[in-house]
């Protein structure tokens, strides 16, 4: 649909917002950020983002250059190069696409160019599936990109705007990934308030780089060979220091965003944590389901709570440890798997708590792989384990959330695939 028609229909109902998918919200974020350059390559479930932007560019609604590339590797190369030429760059990908462009993530972070890349999480092959888990985005955790993970469609839009502010801050100057879950957000419509363009422009002034902007009258070499560990150590560790700066800068930006738009996003989000004894740690869209479980358990008298991880890079270790220290027991639910190790964020949360004297028993739970639902009974089982762990019983960890009925269904699928009866 044309943007003019969309705006017209939205007029008069700004407070309630409008129904937007997560993908449309990401496109609105890019549009409000007044981006200059959008290199694109399609992949399910991301394609709707670039299709929407392509239409807006074609209709003249946004003044950006839209270019289709032949792969995600080329797309990210073009994105980084344009950002190095001083353009504000937006692009998006998902899953296999992110991995195909992977080499360029490290390169771009090293160039210190603050573009924003949206990733729509989708489980990695093999086997092939289309729904969300976080092995794609978490594979990029060491690249030097900042990472913001969104729970709602509103947060997708808001995070794109915040990501530009954070990435372009002179104390940071690193590219940023904004993550949303495939299907559970990307194709899900819910009410989203779209900020006024003028208010967004005030929050996010034009990008005016002077550190890495290549111009005709100011030639420079970007990303050169240094051929020495000495220089490499210096430059690579600068990324670490810039990431650490981003912890503080994010909180400044979040406060300004809240003052302007009335929505507050921290590095982490506490939910019913004040008096919570049994706490879930989750990220992204399924955190909504975790919150529902917390409320359900509270209505049955259990002091349950949830800590949502939002900014994953930089990793807010102190904020996480502060929120979890002293609880009766904590379970980190990872919608990802590092085979041979277990849940990825569990390891990082455990490290954050290691030097705290009142660190709680910490369970690792693997749930929602490939977008598999996490049902009420599975949440109940996690809280049951938490109470046993708090009582000093030994509890299996990591534990996969997988029910008897799912097990039986899997046996049927194996039979259909020609695997014969169970041995």
């Amino acid at each position: 649909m044309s943007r003019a028609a969309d705006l017209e229909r939205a007029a008069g109902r700004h407070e309630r917002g409008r129904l937007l998918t997560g993908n449309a919200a990401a496109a609105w974020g890019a549009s409000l950020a007044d981006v200059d350059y959008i290199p694109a390559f399609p992949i399910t479930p991301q394609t709707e983002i670039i299709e929407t932007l392509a239409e807006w560019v074609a209709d003249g609604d946004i003044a950006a250059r839209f270019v289709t590339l032949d792969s995600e590797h080329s797309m990210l190369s073009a994105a980084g190069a344009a950002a190095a030429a001083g353009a504000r760059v937006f692009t998006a990908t998902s899953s296999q696409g992110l991995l195909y462009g992977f080499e360029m993530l490290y390169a771009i972070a090293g160039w210190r160019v603050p573009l924003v890349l949206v990733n729509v999480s989708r489980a990695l092959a093999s086997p092939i599936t289309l729904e969300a888990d976080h092995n794609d985005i978490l594979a990029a955790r060491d690249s030097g990109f900042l990472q913001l993970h969104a729970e709602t469609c509103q947060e997708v839009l808001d995070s794109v705007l915040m990501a530009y502010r954070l990435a372009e801050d002179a104390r940071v100057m690193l590219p940023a990934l904004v993550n949303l879950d495939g299907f559970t957000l990307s194709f899900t419509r819910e009410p989203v308030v779209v900020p006024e363009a003028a208010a967004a422009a005030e929050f996010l002034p034009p990008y005016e780089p002077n550190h890495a902007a290549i111009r005709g009258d100011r030639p420079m070499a970007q990303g050169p060979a240094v051929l020495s560990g000495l220089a490499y150590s210096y430059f690579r560790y600068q990324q670490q220091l810039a990431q650490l700066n981003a912890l503080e800068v994010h909180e400044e930006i979040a406060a300004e965003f809240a003052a302007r738009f009335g929505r507050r996003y921290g590095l982490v989000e506490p939910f019913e944590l004040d008096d919570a004894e049994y706490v879930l740690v989750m990220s992204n869209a399924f955190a909504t389901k975790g919150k529902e479980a917390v409320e359900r358990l509270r209505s049955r008298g259990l002091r349950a709570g949830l800590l949502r991880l939002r900014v994953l890079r930089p990793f807010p270790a102190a904020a996480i440890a502060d929120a979890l220290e002293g609880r009766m027991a904590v379970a980190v639910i990872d919608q990802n798997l590092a085979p041979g190790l277990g849940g990825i964020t569990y390891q990082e949360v455990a490290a954050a708590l290691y030097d705290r004297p009142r660190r709680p028993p910490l369970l690792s739970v693997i749930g929602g792989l490939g977008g598999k639902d996490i049902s009420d009974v599975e949440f109940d089982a996690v809280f049951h384990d938490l109470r046993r762990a708090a009582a000093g019983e030994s509890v299996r960890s990591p534990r996969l959330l997988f029910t008897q009925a799912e097990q039986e269904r899997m046996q049927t699928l194996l039979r259909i695939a020609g695997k014969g009866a169970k041995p």
Partner: protein
Amino acid sequence: MRVRFHGRGGQGMKTASRILGSAAFHAGLVVQDSPVYGAERRGAPVAAFTRIAKAAIRERGLIAAPDLIVVADETLLFEPTAMPLAGCSARTVVLINTATDAAALQERLAHLGRIESADFTSLVFSITHTLVGLSTALGVAAAALVGLSLEESLAGVAEELAHATLSRAAYEANERLAQEAYALADAWRAVPEPLDASLALAAEAAPTALLAAAPAGAPGTQLVELRFEPPARATPTICVANTPERSTGSWRQFRPLLQRDLCNACWTCFVLCPEGAIALDEHEFPLIDYEVCKGCLVCVHECPTHAFATEKEVR
């Protein structure tokens, strides 16, 4: 209110779920709608979900225990991969698009709650003279069943049709279809409110969700520990010749019928059939395996001599 739509790829159930969503949003309610459609394979079972509430919705993804189930195609009822009646309770209303009457269906189905049915396909065909419009008919019928007004329902249709480029005549036919589908469904009793207040629409609903989850120990709900299985089982391979296990013949709504005298054996259909359902007989004329033919009608559209007729399946 939780509404789950089941259809086949191409029947427009994603659009139906959005028509309902937009209608409810127009009525001032909070909405969340989403589809799941796997690999977008025409004819394959798909589902879509619409949640409607008075306050923020704290749910995501599939709807396990719906208040209303809409089934766009009765063949799905007996399809093991679709399982449209999963999660039904005595309170769940099931709306089925079928020419079979509700009482007869109620007997065949192990469903506790109320079944409503009507032949929406014929209604669509009689008004639009195409099969396009099932999304409008079923989206609006669902809106009537959850208690939305005709005006709100039409607003939902208008919102969704803004995405399509329709001729004026087609647009008007669609609006007439929406009105008739609404009148049909409005005569049925409304879907009862959900028991948990979080997604109830009635003003008098209790303030907090006190309902427990499925009772502990309900069949199939306990967690299991996955065990190592040998690679012969635990690699994601599919052994060939498993088609009889996953027959796609039941997907068909229309059956392609070869009129042999019109066929010049050019093999276009043989090459293009996406399911490999067409073989060649001893004279090298096409031969359709109806156990496999899913009714996509690619052969019908691509045949240069128009050698295929089509026939509506009756089951």
